[in-house]
């Protein structure tokens, strides 16, 4: 007897058409008709937090035109992949009277679809393989996201992200792995283009060359970009002398995306020393002007 996922918790599908899931980095209030998440991630009100959602789907039997329903199903995936920096591919469904459509949102690329009739002889294998990848994302996930710990009360998750650094020991270069715990998502945008995720742990004690790393930024960039953010920050701005008021990049790594996903971009991970709050969170115009004045005068020390 072969065991499948006997040591895994149960993946549960629920009808969530009238429910708003919590904890999305963009605060979206969109409501997928179908949601799948592991059993321990569901709240008592049949909602979960977006970073725990494994699948979002649309039931096409409810009003709306077919085209609108396809757009709706894809919009759920847009939000799902924004909520899941740990996944390269997010999975979704569109079910109708005639068929079931499997949807795959590929970060930095777009949505690919495959529709099968309910009576299709290959349906059972497709559904098996599809659900298999929900249990075990395999190459659909970024293995550097080591753990994800949800806090259903606070509506957020904390990731442990593994970074690798190179050090010289006795003239020999060695690669070391560092686990950066308790990083929470701050910002996410443009999931099918330059897909960018920013995560932060203001209380981090991870040090790179003696400097504390508090922010990690993942962004999908072209393999041969005209400008590299890390180079600009580390060499052009802060060399030979540190410039106050401009964030410092203290870590950089290029991460290749699995070949079968055929994404033409590369994930650039930058570690930043300083963390802060969005400029739009400054409460008054006066304080905003003071901050801008200080930055321009070079008085603001981050």
């Amino acid at each position, binding site marked *: 007897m072969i065991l*499948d996922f006997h040591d895994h918790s149960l993946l549960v599908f629920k*009808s969530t058409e009238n429910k708003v899931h919590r904890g999305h980095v963009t605060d979206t209030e969109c409501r997928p008709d179908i949601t799948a998440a592991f059993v321990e991630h569901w709240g008592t009100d049949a909602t979960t937090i977006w970073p725990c959602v494994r699948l979002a789907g649309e039931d096409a*039997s409810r009003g709306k035109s077919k085209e609108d329903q396809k757009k709706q199903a894809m919009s759920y995936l847009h939000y799902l992949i924004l909520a899941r920096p740990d996944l390269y591919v997010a999975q979704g469904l569109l079910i109708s009277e005639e068929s079931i459509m499997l949807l795959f949102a590929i970060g930095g690329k777009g*949505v690919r679809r*495959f529709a099968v009739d309910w009576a299709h002889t290959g349906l059972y294998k497709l*559904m*098996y*393989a599809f659900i298999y990848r929900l*249990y075990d994302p*395999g190459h659909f996930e970024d293995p550097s996201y080591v753990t994800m710990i949800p806090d259903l009360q606070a509506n957020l998750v904390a990731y442990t992200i593994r970074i690798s650094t190179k050090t010289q020991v006795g003239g020999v270069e060695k690669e070391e792995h560092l686990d950066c715990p308790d990083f929470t998502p701050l910002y996410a945008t443009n999931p099918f283009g330059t897909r960018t995720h920013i995560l932060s742990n203001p209380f981090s004690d991870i040090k790179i060359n003696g400097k504390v790393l508090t922010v990690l930024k993942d962004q999908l960039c072209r393999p041969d970009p005209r400008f590299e953010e890390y180079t600009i920050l580390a060499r052009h701005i802060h060399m030979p002398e540190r410039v106050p008021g401009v964030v410092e990049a203290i870590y950089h790594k290029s991460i290749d995306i699995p070949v079968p996903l055929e994404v033409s971009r590369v994930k650039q991970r930058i570690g930043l020393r300083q963390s802060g709050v969005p400029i739009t969170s400054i409460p008054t115009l006066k304080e905003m002007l003071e901050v801008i004045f200080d930055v321009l005068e070079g008085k603001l020390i981050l």
Partner: protein
Amino acid sequence: MLKDFDIQEEVFDFLGVADELLEVSPKVPGENSAKRSGKSRGKAKETAKAKDDGDPNEFTHSNFIQASNRLSEAMKKDREFTCCLIFLFLNDFY
């Protein structure tokens, strides 16, 4: 919009699930529930219609969620159990 998958083999390649893992069902391709149950095709269609009319104990697209949960539960347990559950899953969809 990206190019959609044209054939199921492309989807399997993309999912990257090993062939041997997919060999889970005792189902013979082309077989359907009408044959298995001995019902005529017309009778099976009537039954299917009755299901669509709202029998909550049967699988139709409208209670796809229960079907998915049964498959998910089966996959969490073991392969033999998965075979049984997939059989039920199919039985109810046809």
